[in-house]
Structure formats: structure tokens, C-alpha cells
């Protein structure tokens, strides 16, 4: 149990933080924060997984036994590189983040109280994720796919519903979230169904709220004391967002572990956060390359979430690009955004060809 917890801490905490340093080194020091580094690292880790897993899924029926060591070694190497570069950066500049003593502001008692309310609401969602069962028929596909991968090392070659062998299921095989969950299960030694239903939600909900926190920080840059108020409202909107079975809030809190939910609640909000961060000229930033890198990587991750993601994310990035281009009268914006969409195009073409 303790070993499993430590393994989870390393693969879901230490490694993503190390990976997140890599894009963080390419953004302004003032924009660096633990949430930024963790979210960027988490997205990087998923993107690396997608790049490793998809070719193996296509060519190797029993490829899970290749994916596990290959991905583990790659992420350890990249995270180590991140930590080494972080140490060098701190050695050179004396700090990794902005100088809080020089630029920081005092947090009022009221603001602290609002943060407490936010954390109570956030904690409530975590507890409910762990304590409540949410029945969803799609689990008979996605969760079983994780378990099949974990138990048999096969990749999308067995029908989850019955157990009969089948040809590779290409429609779903690009969406590698079930294989990623199997990977976490394999390293931690915890059953994949427990990982999906009782463990991974803690990470995914945290990432979702970190992304909202980062977006909120940009929207309320002139009134940072209001950030906890907005975070409270976001919690309430999620907890009471079950107006139908289709909303992103319903997916967030009832199907947290599924790729579709990751699309609605991680990939799409992350794109909006990154667009705000990249194009907000009111924020003094000399370096924005790190945001572009994360945007490129989230477009790799999009295909990992679900088949429709490729189209949806391309539509969001494309439309935002057109609007920003018209408003700023700068065609370069659209061209640059199109470059970040290359992973989506490749995924789409592969899907159509195969």
C-alpha cells in the first residue's frame, strides 16, 4: 500500500513537475508558478505517452510490455533534465519563480476565508468522487480496455464487452487514455478499475481546477483578490452543472476517468487558458514560447482523449485564431496557431488512412 502510494506520488507528482520545468523555462519568470509547472508537466507527460503508445498500438499486438518500460525511461530522463535545468536556473538567477518579496501583495483575511471556502468545495468533490459510485455504461468499454491491457498486455485486440479476439479497433486505438490508466495500474500494482474509479480522479480534478485557476489569474489580473471568488463560483457551477447528462460539468464529476471528460475538462479549458496567456498583451511578458510549446503538446493530447477531439480542438483553435487575427490585424497569429495544429492534422490523416 505504501509502495503503491509512493509510486503514484512519483509518476503523478514528481515526474510531471520535472517535465513541467522544461516549458516553464521558456516563459517569463513572473508567469511561473507551481500550478503552471504541474499543468504543463502533466500535459507534457500525456503528450509523450501518446507519441510512444500510438505507433506501438498499431504495430505490436502485445505492445503494452514495450510501452511500460519505454515510457517510464523516457519520462524519467525528461523529468531529470527538467530538474537539472531548474537547478542551473536557480544557481544562475537565485530563484525559479518571480520575487514575491518585490512584487507580492498582502492577502487579506477575507481573501483567506474565501480560499478556505473554495478548498472545502473542491475537497467535497474529491470526497464524492471517492465515496460515490457513478454508473456509466461506457465503462464496460473503457475501463475493461484498461483491465485487458493490464492483464493480457494486448492493445485493442480483444472485444471488451465479451472477450472475443478481434482485429485492431482503430476507431478507439488513437484514444490511449485506457492504456495510460493501465500503465499507472501496472506501476502502482493497483487494479485498473480502482485506479479509474477511486484514484485518478484526485489528479484529474486537481489539474482541471489548476487550469481554471491559471485562466482566472489572467482574466482577473487587475483584481487578483477576486480570484478565490471566481474559483468558488466555478466549483458551484460544476457541482450544480448536472442540467443534463451531456454537460462538461456532468462529465467532470460523474465520468472523471474517461477520455471524453478529459477532453471537456482538461484539453478544452487548457486551450482557452493558453490562448488567453499567449495573446494577452496587457501582461508584461518577454518570453511566451513555453505557452506555445504547451499548446502544441495539448494538441497532441487531444487525440488521446477521444476520436472527436481532433476536430473539436482544431475548430476551437482555428476560430479563435481567425477572431484574434481580425481583431489584431495580424495574419501571423493564425499562421502560428495553424502550426500548433499539426499534431491534430496528423492524427486526423492517420485516422482516415488507417
Amino acid at each position, binding site marked *: 500500500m505504501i509502495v503503491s502510494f509512493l509510486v503514484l506520488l512519483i509518476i503523478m507528482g514528481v515526474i510531471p513537475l520535472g517535465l513541467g520545468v522544461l516549458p516553464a523555462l521558456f516563459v517569463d519568470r513572473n508567469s511561473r508558478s507551481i500550478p503552471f509547472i504541474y499543468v504543463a508537466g502533466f500535459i507534457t507527460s500525456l503528450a509523450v505517452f501518446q507519441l510512444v503508445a500510438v505507433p506501438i498500438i498499431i504495430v505490436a499486438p502485445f505492445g503494452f510490455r514495450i510501452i511500460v518500460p519505454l515510457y517510464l525511461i523516457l519520462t524519467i530522463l525528461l523529468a531529470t533534465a527538467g530538474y537539472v535545468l531548474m537547478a542551473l536556473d536557480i544557481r544562475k538567477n537565485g530563484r525559479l519563480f518571480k520575487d514575491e518579496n518585490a512584487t507580492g501583495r498582502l492577502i487579506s483575511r477575507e481573501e483567506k476565508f474565501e480560499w478556505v471556502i473554495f478548498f472545502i468545495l473542491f475537497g467535497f468533490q474529491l470526497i464524492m468522487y471517492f465515496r460515490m459510485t457513478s454508473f456509466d455504461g461506457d465503462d464496460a468499454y473503457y475501463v475493461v480496455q484498461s483491465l485487458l491491457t493490464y492483464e493480457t498486455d494486448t492493445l485493442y485486440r480483444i472485444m471488451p464487452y465479451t472477450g472475443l479476439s478481434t482485429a485492431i479497433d482503430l476507431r478507439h486505438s488513437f484514444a490511449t487514455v485506457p492504456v495510460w490508466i493501465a500503465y499507472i495500474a501496472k506501476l502502482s500494482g493497483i487494479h485498473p*478499475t480502482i485506479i479509474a474509479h477511486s484514484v485518478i480522479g484526485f489528479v484529474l480534478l486537481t489539474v482541471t481546477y489548476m487550469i481554471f485557476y491559471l485562466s482566472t489569474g489572467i482574466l482577473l489580473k487587475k483584481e487578483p483578490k477576486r480570484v478565490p471568488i471566481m474559483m468558488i463560483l466555478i466549483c458551484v457551477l460544476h457541482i450544480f452543472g*448536472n442540467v443534463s447528462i451531456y454537460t462538461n460539468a456532468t462529465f467532470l464529476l460523474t465520468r472523471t476517468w474517461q477520455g471524453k471528460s478529459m477532453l471537456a475538462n482538461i484539453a478544452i479549458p487548457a486551450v482557452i487558458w493558453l490562448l488567453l496567456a499567449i495573446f494577452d498583451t496587457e501582461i508584461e511578458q518577454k518570453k511566451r514560447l513555453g505557452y506555445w510549446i504547451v499548446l502544441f503538446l495539448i494538441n497532441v493530447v487531444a487525440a488521446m482523449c477521444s476520436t472527436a477531439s481532433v476536430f473539436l480542438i482544431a475548430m476551437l483553435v482555428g*476560430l479563435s485564431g481567425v477572431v484574434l487575427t481580425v481583431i489584431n490585424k495580424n495574419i501571423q497569429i493564425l499562421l502560428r496557431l495553424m502550426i500548433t495544429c499539426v499534431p491534430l492534422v496528423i492524427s486526423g490523416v492517420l485516422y482516415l488512412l488507417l
Partner: protein
Amino acid sequence: MTEILEIFKAYNGTGYYCILFLAALIYLWYSETNKTTRAIVVITPLLIQLIFFIPYFYKIYNKLDAGTYYRILWLLPMTLVIAYAGCRVIGNHVRMGLAIVCVILVISGTYVYKNINITPAENAYHLPQECIDLCDMVKPAEGKERVWVAFPPSLVHFVRQYTTEIQLPFGRDNMVSTWKSYENPLYDLYCGSVMPADKLSEYGTQYNCNYFILERKMRVYGNLEDYDILKIGETDNYIVYRNKSVPLWDKVAE
């Protein structure tokens, strides 16, 4: 167009978040001065909303991924926009304003944990404990090959989330009427209220079923033992039978 409207209505369901979102967009349209914020959280969502209602777009999308058109609405940052507008509307009346906005959101929405599909978890797997108990009774012993077990339709979603050592003669794909699945006479038998012993034996053996799980309330017509189907266990709501006509195989050494 009617279909699109139906999808839109189904997405927005019972609450009023759609109206709040529209109100928030209008408010931000007039009050937001930052052009990047306007572009990303006001103009782009409005464009997405307009495109959503274009019938040709709906047709093209359906060719790519039928049945998931509602996901276009995920691109609308409803949560972010409503929360941002709410935060700004509050102004300097923080406590009272926050309380009022929260009340509006609570009244306009639906509490997610009130959903009928959400129940207290019985174990860390979040699967019905009775299903796990049944699986433990029939799953293959060490060194034995995977088994085929016919479960009642109400349990087929859960069985293989616990162990894939159990294979099912019919699964979720048989239960969704809109999916193109092969006819399965064993599944049809399980959907009835009476189970004819002879048919269960015939179809069960045809599908290589080593075990049958029957609901306790299911009436069996005929004597199962006459067909080498023996009761080996039970739970509160189900009875477990071994179909002796289908042998349990040893695993072939790799």
C-alpha cells in the same frame, strides 16, 4: 434544423445555465475592455454557437462522428464565462454579492450528486459487491483457462471491469438497441421472465458457457439437473449454476 434544436435543448436540459451564459456574454460584450479576453471568451463562443446551428455543419460533423454533436457545445466556456461575469457583477459587495450569485447558480442548476446513477460506493472498485462475489465464485482457478459465463443483463456492464478472466456470451453491445450486434438467442432467453431449462442448456452449450447466473426471481421451466446444470452457489439475488456439458480447460503452457 429540428434535430439540432433537439440536441441543443437536450444539452441545456432542466437548468437555466444556458440563459445565464447568454446573459453573461451580453454583459461581457458591453463591459469587457481587454480585446484578447473579448475575442476568446465572448466573440469566439458566439461564433461557435452560431456555427452549431448551421445544418450543413451538422451533416458534415455527423459523417465524422455520428451521435456526438452535443460535444460542439463543450467548446463554449460556459463555466468560465458565467463565473467571470458573476465575479465582475458582484463589484465591491463581495459577501452579499457572492451569496446572491451562488443562490442563483444553485437554483438555476441541478445538483450533480442527486443523479439517479450516483450511489454510495460499495468497494474501491465502485462495482456492485454482489457482482464481485459472483465473479469470485466462477472465475477460473490458477492454471485454468478463461471461462464463459452467462450473467443476467443487469450485471454484464460490471463483470469484466472486475476480471477479464470471465468471458461473456453476450455483453453491452447486445443491450443497446441502436447498435448493430448479432442476434443472440441466449440473450433473448435472459430477457424473458421464464427460463426454459432445455433452451438454456442448448444455447448455453452452443456458446460454451461453463456457468450460468440466474436471477433468483427468474422462474425456471423444467429441471436444470436433467441437463447437467448443477447449482453450486448463491447470493441474495442470484443463483450460480455449473454447466457440466462444457468442460473447464487447463491453460496451455506458453
